[in-house]
């Protein structure tokens, strides 16, 4: 049984060309998928389609075998969490208030978050290494700290599928590795599935599946060993000087200046 499957998705913004074209993908429970591609290749559009924030103009998305659009938003939110590229809030919410909002799909409509929700939020902050920020106003944090907090909110949601849009773009090397360890750990213990956009090719070898997009279309898909090859990457990024080399568990990717 697939947790999520998408078939032949098309999406175009108003008066624009197709940003996503005939894209299909599947995410079985407990798998880690990464989406790579050049800037503007449709990665974020794809993940927003999967999160239900955009409606595909053609194609279908199934969550647990039911069309995504037919899910009640509140019930869907118990299964799927989304981490955007960046979040800015107009009001000085504290980090804890923000992470607690991730518990919304699990608390009934006219109740406040209880002790259990508090613990889940605290635990999520600890997992992302952001527990020390709990009482700070979110808008006073740096870009990297914000990413850790937004990830914590998504984890507090206890999803089965986590959709991440470049979650590590502002993180230092240490925190990038920590992020990946947290995700791998949740896959092992909770059967979490992950679909993650990244430009950070170093860690892609840790994923089960790599999907490469170019101009909105899937150009390559498969295991890291299938996709992380000189020829494939040169085609994906349109750069004839890219090299990829496997060193132990890691993949080193570089391009000539």
């Amino acid at each position, binding site marked *: 049984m697939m947790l999520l499957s998408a078939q032949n998705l098309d999406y175009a913004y108003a008066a624009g060309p197709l940003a996503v074209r005939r894209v299909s993908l599947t995410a079985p429970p407990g798998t880690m998928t990464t989406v790579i591609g050049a800037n503007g290749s449709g990665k974020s559009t794809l993940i927003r389609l999967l999160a239900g*924030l955009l409606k595909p103009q053609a194609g279908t998305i199934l969550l647990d075998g039911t069309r995504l659009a037919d899910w009640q*938003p509140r019930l869907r*939110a118990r299964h799927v969490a989304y981490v955007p590229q960046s979040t800015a809030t*107009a*009001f000085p919410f504290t980090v804890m208030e923000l992470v607690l*909002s991730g518990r*919304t799909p699990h608390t009934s409509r006219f109740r406040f*978050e209880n002790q259990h929700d508090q613990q889940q939020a605290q635990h999520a902050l600890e997992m992302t290494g952001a527990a020390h920020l709990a009482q700070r106003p979110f*808008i006073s944090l740096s870009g990297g700290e914000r990413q850790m907090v937004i990830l914590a909110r998504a984890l507090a949601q206890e999803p089965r599928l986590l959709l991440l849009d470049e979650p590590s773009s502002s993180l230092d090397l240490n925190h990038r590795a920590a992020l990946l360890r947290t995700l791998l750990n949740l896959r092992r213990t909770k059967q979490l599935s992950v679909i993650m956009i990244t430009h950070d090719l170093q860690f892609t070898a840790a994923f089960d599946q790599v999907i490469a997009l170019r101009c909105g279309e899937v150009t390559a898909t498969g295991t890291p060993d299938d996709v992380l090859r000189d020829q494939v990457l040169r085609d994906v990024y349109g750069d004839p000087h890219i090299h990829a080399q496997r060193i132990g568990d890691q993949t080193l990717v570089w391009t000539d200046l």
Partner: protein
Amino acid sequence: MRGRVLKALAILTLVLLVSIAIGLAVGSQRITPAQLFADSFSRALFFRLRLPRVLLGLVIGASLAISGGTLQALFRNPLADPFTLGVSGGGALGASIAIALGWSAQLAGVPLVFVAAFAGAMLAVSVVRLIARTGAVVMPGALLLSGVAVNLIAAAAVLTVEYLTDPSSALRILRWLTGSLDVVGLTPIRNMLLVLVPAWIGLLALSRQLNLLAIDEDTAATLGVNVRRCETIAHALCALIVGVTVSAGGAIGFVGLIVPHTVRMLFGEDLRIVLPGSLLLGAAFLILADALARTVLPSGELPVGAITGLLGGPAFLWLLRRRQQYSAL
């Protein structure tokens, strides 16, 4: 969290009760409980004028404050308020037209002035929403500028209505526009409450979803909020509340700006505290502002709109100055 809410509401209820006591006691003539029993003139003054006026202040203050808190969340803009967004202006235009047509006209049992003010407020909020929204983003600067433009257009249209109508209606519009809480008897207040109480309850019931919307629209959507539906309902409720309020008390400015921010500073950002808290504190604030308006001059009284404007304008500027704290501006 639940404890925090109860504590906040208990404190604010106390503040409201004290304000009501002050509002009932002071005025052109001070009334003590003893006089109320002894003196029939004081009794008439109290029940025909003083009590209705305090109640009207309560109803209007509560309404403007809760709509301010809601509009700030809906537009993710700390400077949003019925006045700054032109919603009051739109309501005032609708009400002026109704007054020109005849104050006591009714439409299916509802005073025409309510219906017209609601329509005007709804039109204004729709225009502002349409202009400030480009794609998925509400542009904070465009929001306030379109509010200014809507206010100017509405003010010009009100002026036109005044010119076209007969002198007695024109005078009525002019008196009412300055924003005052002059009222005789309790019937008009009862009519307002029949509309306002359900609308207040509607907004309070949406407060959790509004809280998620105040954080971020995408976040709200992926946490299970039906964003379009929630926004549409909340806009309509705000327009209804502001329309009815404006038709009774004129355009009283800035209550919706000062009050929710005070509640935020005291009790935090969560809309589940800010909205009910604004309801209580807004009522207290306008009762006190009106008590001040009635007593500040040695003889006669100021319109309450002058007091809230003099307090609210600087508060607006202060918030603008502090905008570094608010990344969305």
